[in-house]
């Protein structure tokens, strides 16, 4: 802390000016695609084609967003993605937490092998399961429904989620559980009333990471869904991009709609997101 204060009071040297310059330039390059998307999404098509990407917009237009929402069917894609995200994400995390609890706090035959079995899932690419999952889903009669996404999404979320929850549960003192066990509490009660409330930070982190990756997922959805009414946002955007490739302002409105929830989550929960992505990989 003291080091930081003394450094930031240091006068600007040539090195630091250069550093700011380089970072500033890179920052502009990194930010410009976002800026172009927002500007283009809110200008009229005529304005765009007359004056080009670089010009300052002469008009402000809500029409593009409305077009994308209604004609471009983003209202349907949003509904589907929200249903999947808000049902599947908590369900998956609950299932992972249930599994992580005995793996963290009980000893039983095969405990370590089961943990390792789950961890190995991190090495299995989705690609290798697509066709068998497609066949399974057909046998289950779930073809082309939103529900078909749930089992593979949950299965592929489990390895990281069990790893993170197990690590977190392990840090909770076992004495808390033993006291409750002596009072005759069942393990399910312990799990629900002691472990889960204490694990709120880990749960919040996992919720946000999993929301983002669920919202963004393309490959499984591409294989399992094929009709317009069940498309999620990435599939919808893919379709929209094909149809509106020359109507640039509408296209950008569609892009903006598809990234808006992620940007909001990112700005609101950046801390959790970063802690989850980096801390999930290793204990700090």
């Amino acid at each position: 802390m003291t080091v930081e204060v003394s450094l930031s009071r240091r006068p600007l040297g040539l090195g630091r000016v250069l550093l700011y310059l380089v970072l500033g330039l890179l920052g502009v390059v990194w930010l410009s695609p976002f800026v172009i998307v927002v500007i283009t999404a809110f200008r009229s098509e005529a304005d765009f084609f007359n004056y080009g990407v670089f010009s300052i917009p002469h008009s402000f237009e809500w029409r593009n967003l409305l077009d994308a929402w209604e004609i471009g069917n983003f209202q349907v894609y949003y509904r589907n993605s929200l249903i999947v995200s808000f049902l599947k994400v908590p369900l998956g995390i609950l299932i992972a937490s249930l599994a992580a609890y005995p793996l963290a706090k009980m000893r039983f035959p095969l405990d370590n092998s089961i943990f390792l079995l789950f961890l190995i899932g991190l090495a299995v690419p989705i690609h290798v399961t697509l066709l068998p999952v497609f066949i399974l889903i057909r046998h289950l009669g779930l073809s082309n429904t939103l529900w078909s996404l749930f089992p593979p999404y949950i299965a592929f979320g489990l390895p990281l989620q069990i790893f993170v929850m197990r690590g977190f549960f392990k840090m909770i003192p076992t004495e808390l559980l033993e006291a409750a066990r002596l009072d005759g509490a069942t393990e399910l009660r312990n799990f629900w009333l002691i472990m889960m409330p204490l694990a709120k930070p880990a749960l919040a982190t996992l919720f946000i990471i999993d929301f983002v990756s669920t919202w963004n997922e393309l490959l499984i959805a591409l294989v399992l869904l094929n009709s317009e009414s069940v498309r999620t946002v990435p599939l919808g955007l893919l379709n929209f991009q094909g149809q509106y490739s020359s109507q640039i302002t509408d296209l950008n409105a569609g892009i903006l709609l598809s990234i808006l929830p992620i940007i909001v989550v990112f700005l609101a929960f950046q801390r959790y997101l970063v802690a989850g992505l980096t801390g999930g990989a290793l204990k700090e």
Partner: protein
Amino acid sequence: MDLLEVSKGVGERLAEREVSRASYMSRFLRKRVSVTPYLFLLPALVIYLTFLVYPAIYSLYLSLTEWDGLSPQKKFVGLQNYISLWGDPVFRLALRNNVIWTVVTLLVPTIGGLALAVALNQPLRGRNLFRAVFYAPGVLPLVAVASIWGWIYNPNFGFINEMLRHIGLGSLAHGWLADYDTALPATLVTAIWQGIGLPMMFYLAGLQVIPQEQYEAAAIDGANAWQRFWHITLPWLSQTHVIVITLAVISSFRVFDLIYAMTYGGPGQTTQVLATWMYFNTFQYYHAGYGSAIAWVIAGISLLVTIPYIRLMARSQQE
């Protein structure tokens, strides 16, 4: 005589083993193996075994068959599909593209992410804003990233060509994604924009662990900034290197969304990667056995690269 002794020895050993097995069993029996932990694990195990483990193994079997993905008949052909891969020019091109993708990912976003992390670990004004700006593209849906860059590269009114015309380099303007020579580099530029944030964040997390005294001591000894970076920062980050490099390699071999949504493997087949070639074979050309073999090439590379990382993870939670 000999035989007797040998058989006696064997008998003794068998008896010993019996005893040790009995004590092993009784340890659990005496404590009465509780079903509770298994009940907690049941939902996760059922879903995991049904929708991840079983499909992965089944597709390994499918990769040994000739099958269109629809008909009831599967013809077992052994390793034929894997042998055919080497005679398939598109597969070799795809593999080469994945290797290029890996090398570029290791060189640019990984080293760039490290550089940004070191820069943004200093007490700079607005460093949190900078971190957010570099990291933000990494959380976007890849289809959206592909759409954004698809029109940035647009031949007629895309950002890049407009800019080139503005600065008098209009002759360079063309359809970047439609050109055989520029399509792959163009997707790589997008991948760099999208991918620099994650390694940066990992390195920033890693940098927090390095004790400040190390730098102070080195500074007193007269080490310059470069020497301090080389002899303190880099070695202290060794665990982070493992994570970042592992993730870079596996994500490079799994890349699908960006290629599928930006170029669809084209023009011609120039930007085909293993994952897209797997997808086209399995789900569009009805070469399900062959597609499964490509999928298993990806899985094999992925398993090989990830196992050390998983061991590191498992060890980090050992008590």
